[in-house]
């Protein structure tokens, strides 16, 4: 697998995983006190949290492949493209609103990501 494919695969899986996590803990039993059993039950019993766990493991495996063969000062800043993916996916799947100032942030982030990948 090429380091580039591993890198972007890791980023996309990571972004998708964050949405799975928020879907799992943003409502329900995880909203109770972390001192309570129901908080931990809410986490451990949520299929969304498990999906997040698996996507995290897969993203991490791909990340290790990527950074074995690319500089960390190149690969890690490219992780910021995750913000763009998370915002777009959270709008599409969680109904989170992306207002004008967040949209501007996404444009600026995109420019930064392009500069890093070209530089």
């Amino acid at each position, binding site marked *: 697998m090429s380091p580039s494919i591993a890198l972007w695969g890791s980023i996309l899986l990571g972004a998708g995983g*964050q949405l799975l*996590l928020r879907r799992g803990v943003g409502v329900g039993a995880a909203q109770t006190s972390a001192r309570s059993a129901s908080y931990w039950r809410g986490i451990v019993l949520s299929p969304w949290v498990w999906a997040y766990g698996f996507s995290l493991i897969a993203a991490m495996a791909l990340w290790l492949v990527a950074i074995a*063969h690319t500089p*960390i000062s190149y690969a890690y800043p490219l992780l910021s493209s995750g913000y763009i993916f998370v915002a777009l996916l959270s709008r599409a799947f969680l109904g989170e609103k992306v207002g004008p*100032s967040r949209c501007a942030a996404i444009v600026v982030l995109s420019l*930064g990501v392009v500069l890093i990948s070209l530089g």
Partner: protein
Amino acid sequence: MMENSASDAVTLPGSRGRETQYWIPALALSITLAAVGHLAMKAALNTAAAVPTHGVVEKLSYHLHHPALLAGLAAYAVGTLLWIFAVSRKEISYVYPLTAANYAVIAIGGKALFGETVSTMRWAGIAVVMIGVMLMHRSSGERS
């Protein structure tokens, strides 16, 4: 009867015991552990690349016994538990951007620890990304 002022300090009125303020230190520690973890893992993979191993199984076995890699994964694992807590308390589109500080730290770490060449365009890109992340942070005031 006097309220216990210590418990007043940790729960906001109306928070119903949800430790609303703890997401801030949890997030800060999560970010720190993630940076430490990534640099440790890169250190491990840099040295592993130089070790001749034959085949995937031997390479994987070598990686899994490397202390820097295991330490990096452990740091990242603890950071993830703290992250899960922060995300249960705050919208993901708000929390995620606060990890921006890491980008400068890790780029500097890559240069200082591993002698990586960081071009001007890459530094510029990192700076623009950090601005973009700050804009993301400010945009969290928008209703979501």
